[in-house]
């Protein structure tokens, strides 16, 4: 029986602390009934700009490196010859290589897929769902008779790295059409972002809204504003590249929540929400992170 106590106590403590934290947050104004993405985005950006007056708006996309000088120095050194360089070249090669039917990725995307990363994810009115870049890449493959790629790393990371690179510096430009389904997807993404989950009782916001710049164990937490602009990333912790899917999955695991499948509806909606509220900030991917 003795070993039962510790694991059960952990969630209890987490819930108690959550309750205390809730008391602090509860001062916020009551939620509006109808989603207003434009107002949300404005408030979201304003929150970070006010919280970090020393950080330039476009610098938020550099995550923890915008928050800590010692870390920034290590990053600047890494960027001299970035560890994602090999993935970038592999992605460029893959992108140009024709499928068995002779077509290429360029045939699936606007402007041949060059400089379009900032438009993803978008709401597909025909299918009534959010389409991310990763999903679009696999749909492109399947439409051309190729097997889909794993969403988390390797080829998918290389392809998205190359596509992001061709969009570097372009401001994210996510559109939410006046369509109740698009608004519902946005709202679901927002719900996912703020909902506490896992045994540690953390939401995405617990780390990336309340505590960016602070250390959680070893690492400096990245601000949620612009957090996806740097994707995909080479993480030293992974000793390799990872996609947005991989980041969501590992974030869930770290809070001891069973992650969803890559590109699940929740994850795509979350990407839609997080990208929309970072509209106007430049694409900086591929990025390098601890």
């Amino acid at each position, binding site marked *: 029986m003795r070993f039962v106590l510790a694991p059960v106590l952990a969630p209890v403590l987490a819930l108690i602390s959550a309750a205390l934290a809730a008391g602090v947050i509860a001062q916020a104004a009551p939620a509006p009934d109808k989603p207003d993405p434009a107002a949300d985005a404005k408030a979201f950006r304003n929150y970070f700009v006010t919280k970090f007056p020393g950080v330039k708006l476009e610098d938020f996309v550099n*995550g*923890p490196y915008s928050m800590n000088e*010692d*870390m920034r*120095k*290590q*990053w600047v*050194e*890494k960027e001299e010859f970035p*560890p994602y360089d090999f993935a970038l070249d592999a992605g460029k090669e893959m992108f140009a290589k024709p499928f068995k039917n002779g077509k290429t990725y360029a045939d699936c995307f606007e402007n041949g897929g060059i400089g379009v990363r900032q438009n993803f994810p978008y709401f597909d009115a025909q299918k009534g769902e959010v389409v991310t870049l990763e999903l679009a890449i696999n749909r492109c493959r399947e439409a051309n008779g190729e097997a889909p790629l794993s969403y988390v790393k390797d080829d998918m990371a290389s392809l998205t790295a190359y596509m992001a690179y061709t969009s570097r510096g372009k401001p994210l430009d996510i559109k939410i059409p006046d369509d109740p389904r698009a608004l519902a997807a946005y709202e679901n993404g927002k719900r996912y972002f703020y909902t506490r989950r896992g045994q540690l009782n*953390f939401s995405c916001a617990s*780390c990336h809204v309340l505590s960016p710049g602070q250390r*959680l*164990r*070893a*690492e*400096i*937490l*990245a601000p949620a504003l612009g957090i996806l602009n740097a994707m995909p*990333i080479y*993480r*030293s*912790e992974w*000793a390799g590249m990872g996609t947005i899917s991989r*980041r969501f999955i590992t*974030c869930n695991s*770290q*809070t001891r929540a069973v992650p969803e499948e890559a590109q699940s509806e929740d994850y795509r909606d979350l990407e839609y929400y997080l990208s929309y509220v970072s509209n106007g900030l430049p694409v900086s991917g591929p990025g390098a*992170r*601890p």
Partner: protein
Amino acid sequence: MSISIEGFSATRRLVLQGAGAVALFGFGALAARPALAAANDPYPEAAFKQKADRDAIQALYGRTADASDKVKLDAPEIAENGAVVPISVTTTLENVTSISFFVSGNPNALAASYAIPEGTLPAVSNRLKMQQTSNVIAIVEAGGKLYSATKEVKVTVGGCGG
């Protein structure tokens, strides 16, 4: 050159240093072909196998180093990740023949050793692994003597960051 392996790398670096060192051994032919001497340089296996920093320095150079403020070691206060720690060294010392990096807390202290022939600047940047918080020691070999700089780098485990 019937010299033990431990002594060899130090010797080779002296050879590269130029005429003065060559006179010591009296091998004119070696002085004429310093590039080949470096290319054929045996890998300092024994030094890389030492556990403690002191033993590794002894195995590589056969002598001890003196701390010098002319050796500038640049390393982070806190490594963002122990798997990739950017570390660099520059020095104002003259006649530098080699620069080496030791991580005291690693299973084997010697991490990297660089030969600096004449005409190459005495400055190196690289990225090393660190298993735990410990000292990083940079050794600069100049004019046949060893100079060092030491800095502690904190290493913590990964978590919910990024």
